[in-house]
């Protein structure tokens, strides 16, 4: 009796609405997880390039640094590095803060401070790169 072996299987223990929202138990979805992984992936080649650049520029004069940073390729790589670094950094520090600061107001203040600082520092880096390179 082949038919009797077929049992009804429930693969998903979630409502249709829950599935379509895709937010899960934490109610924030997988955006943070993906953002941290994709920026990590981008940072693998960018960090290697940055390490090579730092070695190349050891003890270099101001003029040599300006000459190195001049040109679209270096500008694009530097800005990519800055964006990926500060994006990855604020996602990482967010998790650390959420893990260790349990007082609601203090946690919110720390999160806002870190995110605000990340934006300001990233902008400072980008403006500097453009000022040197353009």
């Amino acid at each position: 009796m082949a038919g009797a072996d077929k049992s009804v299987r429930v693969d998903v223990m979630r409502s249709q609405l829950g599935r379509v929202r895709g937010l899960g138990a934490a109610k924030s979805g997988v955006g943070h997880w993906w953002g941290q992984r994709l920026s990590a992936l981008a940072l693998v080649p960018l960090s290697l390039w940055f390490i090579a650049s730092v070695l190349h520029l050891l003890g270099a004069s101001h003029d040599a640094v300006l000459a190195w940073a001049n040109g679209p390729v270096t500008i694009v790589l530097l800005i990519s590095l800055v964006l990926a670094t500060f994006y990855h950094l604020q996602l990482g520090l967010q998790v650390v803060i959420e893990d260790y600061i349990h007082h609601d107001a203090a946690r919110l203040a720390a999160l806002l401070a870190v995110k605000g600082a990340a934006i300001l520092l990233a902008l400072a880096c980008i403006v500097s790169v453009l000022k040197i390179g353009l």
Partner: protein
Amino acid sequence: MKDVREALSVARNSEGRMVQRPLSPHLQVYRPQITSFTSIMHRATGVALAVGTLLMTWWLVAAATSEDAFATAQWFIGSPVGLLLLFGWTLALVYHLINGIRHLAWDAGAGFDAPQYRQTGYATLIGTAGVTLLLWLIGLVIW
């Protein structure tokens, strides 16, 4: 106590006293292992690198500001304190990079067996020491 999460974290300890159970990651309870050590170090180096971006920002802003500002930044990086920070930054970056690749492999579903994650854990530590020393050797030769 006004939160159900707080109520759930109350339990008796081995002496029968009511205590607030410790929060994860239970550093004071578990025996240190290569997995917990590499995990804790990933977070620690991540925080250290976040602080290190201040130095990178200073260097870039100084280069864009003036020759004097750049000379000050270069002087600081070349000072004993600056070199120590730079060495720590190299160590943290190399570790976070290698262990980060290990994490990405896990996210792709690879390397989850116990012998494998122990081996890659020790390989990460050895690789970090080796690559950091190699980079500083190259750096010192160039410098």
